[in-house]
């Protein structure tokens, strides 16, 4: 019942957005939908029993987590969008609002769907819904970005579908009733035929990993994030990636239930380190601060996967990091969007002294950098420290050393770019620009960073409980 509300209401609103001809009310649809959605999610959090769904649509702790993230992101981004669309009167907001709402619906569906086939459909749908958003600016560069996003993404997703079929076949092959419903798969996991399971895991990891942006399938990411409007970047980096991660976690649960943890963990750790390394390499000397954010997102996806691969204490850390990353990225992308607007450029050659030109966004950008590179008192520090402790505790010293090394490279690469953006004096023509940050465009970022700061000093009880529950779901090691 609630599921229907959470998923269909945004779809309905999207339809309305496409239908009605007036821009003003259309813009208002966003925050309204966001608020309703958030309210429903809150209800689910208060009374999980409300979420008692069918075998296809269910909601465990993990899903609740992702659902909350998506909802919060959308809420704040929709507020931001009102300010943003105010600046972009030239553009028709029809497609923009419609697709944004559609994205929300599909992401909620991903969180809900426990049928791998259905989940696949939803994930692919998020891709399709977000493509027009990336193309919002209608420039040659944005077309190119959209094209790559679409093609690379679709190919990856296609592999995920193949992977799902493999999984089904693995059970069919073992002579069991085939089904792609998560719970049933987990039940019959021990009997699954191992080679098919392995193949399925790799395919699904690569497939959803493409969506998540793990190196080397991350290639679409810098282009898409670089060209999309700031809030779309926030939705992609915070929401869509989380959904893809959720998909991978579900597959991982099947593997774990089948007693194939070592196999899966090995691959996850490898992919995680590769992603961190590549991201770091591309961040050093990065001139374009939005592309830099994209690579930072790649790095953090790597950290998530790495943490899951390490397992044990690190699992909790990885899940906490999921929350931190979504919020921090949201804040940084919104700030980056404002800076981009104000300077009409996203290259460090032109952008200087953002802290003087845009006090709030500039400071947010700097603070966000400090936060996402894992410095106290912000959330990511705790989660990364937990992951590191997990690695050390399990005696993986080399891996831990690499982890730290890559963190350092990322810090240096990111810091050079961020500092040159925020420090110094803006050029005269930059100061002359008409753009001023309003409450609508500044406040959401502040709220994001506020949450990140809070998570560094205080993890609320319910969240903590949910995290523990979710970690327990993933900790079925024999």
């Amino acid at each position: 019942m609630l599921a229907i509300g959470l998923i269909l209401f945004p779809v309905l609103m999207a339809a309305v957005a496409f239908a009605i001809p007036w821009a003003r009310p259309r813009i208002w649809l966003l925050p309204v939908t966001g608020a309703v959605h958030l309210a429903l999610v809150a209800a689910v959090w208060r009374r999980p029993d409300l979420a008692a769904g069918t075998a296809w649509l269910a909601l465990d702790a993990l899903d609740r987590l992702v659902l909350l993230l998506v909802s919060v992101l959308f809420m704040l981004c929709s507020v931001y969008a009102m300010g943003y669309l105010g600046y972009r009167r030239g553009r028709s907001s029809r497609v923009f609002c419609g697709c944004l709402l559609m994205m929300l619906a599909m992401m909620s569906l991903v969180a809900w769907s426990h049928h791998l086939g259905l989940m696949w459909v939803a994930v692919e749908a998020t891709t399709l819904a977000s493509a027009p958003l990336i193309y919002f600016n209608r420039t040659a560069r944005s077309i190119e970005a959209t094209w790559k996003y679409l093609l690379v993404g679709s190919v990856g997703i296609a592999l995920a579908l193949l992977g799902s079929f493999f999984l089904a076949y693995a059970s069919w092959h073992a002579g069991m009733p085939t089904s792609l419903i998560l719970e049933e798969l987990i039940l019959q996991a021990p009997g699954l035929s191992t080679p098919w399971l392995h193949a399925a895991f790799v395919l699904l990891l690569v497939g959803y990993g493409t969506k998540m942006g793990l190196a080397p399938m991350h290639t679409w990411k810098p282009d898409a994030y670089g060209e999309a409007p700031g809030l779309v970047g926030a939705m992609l980096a915070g929401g869509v990636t989380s959904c893809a991660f959720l998909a991978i976690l579900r597959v991982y649960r099947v593997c774990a239930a089948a007693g194939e943890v070592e196999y899966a963990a090995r691959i996850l750790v490898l992919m995680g380190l590769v992603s961190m390394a590549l991201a770091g390499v591309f961040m050093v000397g990065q001139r374009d601060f939005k592309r830099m954010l994209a690579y930072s997102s790649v790095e953090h996806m790597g950290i998530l996967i790495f943490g899951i691969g390490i397992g044990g204490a690190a699992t909790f850390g990885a899940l906490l990091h999921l929350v931190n990353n979504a919020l921090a990225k949201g804040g940084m992308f919104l700030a980056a969007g404002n800076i981009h607007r104000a300077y009409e450029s996203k290259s460090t050659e032109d952008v200087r002294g953002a802290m003087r030109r845009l006090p709030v966004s500039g400071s947010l950008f700097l603070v966000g950098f400090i936060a996402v590179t894992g410095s106290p008192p912000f959330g990511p520090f705790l989660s990364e420290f937990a992951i590191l402790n997990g690695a050390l505790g399990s005696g993986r010293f080399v891996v831990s050393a690499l982890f730290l090394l890559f963190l350092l490279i990322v810090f240096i690469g990111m810091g050079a770019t961020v500092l040159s953006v925020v420090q110094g004096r803006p050029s005269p023509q930059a100061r002359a620009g008409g753009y001023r940050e309003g409450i609508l465009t500044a406040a959401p970022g502040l709220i994001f960073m506020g949450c990140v700061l809070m998570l560094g000093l205080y993890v609320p009880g319910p969240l903590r409980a949910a995290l523990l529950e979710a970690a327990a779901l993933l900790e079925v090691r024999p």
Partner: protein
Amino acid sequence: MTPLFETLLVLVLLLNLVALGISRIRALIRTVALQGIVLGAMPLFVHEHIDVRVVLVSLVTVAMKGMVIPAMLQKAMRDVQIKREVEPLVGLIPSMMLGATATALAVALAQFLPLAGEHIVGLVVPTSLATVLTGFLLLTTRLKAISQVLGYLVLENGIFIFGLLLLEAMPLLVEMGVLLDLLVAIFVMGIILNHINREFSSLDTRQLSTLKD
């Protein structure tokens, strides 16, 4: 199990090679359309008993893969007045060779995979893998954006073939969802193609490499 089914599979393999070897885009589109129709026919022959679900699936598949999508692409071609050649990155003959090798590899790989007793499986899995690889070949060796769309279609076809194995396992809803997604994907790609052409007055992906590090 009918020998017809195996013939269809062989036909699919042949169409892969044709798709790799063909030089005109319109012809390529027709080839893929034909492959779609063949695919659509397959579900009818997987099992003896034919229930309404299977028929529905096959009809929708034929309609989508065989008619609607090709029609959309043909229209896109008509809208964008461009040279009709495929412009391969790798020559046609070499890509056919590669396709043949891919097929051989697929068959070889299928020997390693533990397969359930049913004898059709022995052919289905290699065919689907070969088709997937063909799709990758088209995606990686063709310069025109539209031929990459076709590559993606072939890739999907390959996956669909594997899906035949789980025909009864896979709920109708999901089947339809998959096809719908495919349709929308191609639709959006078509729009993007159109914009690309308007922006760059060509579909040459060499123009689409300004975003890099």
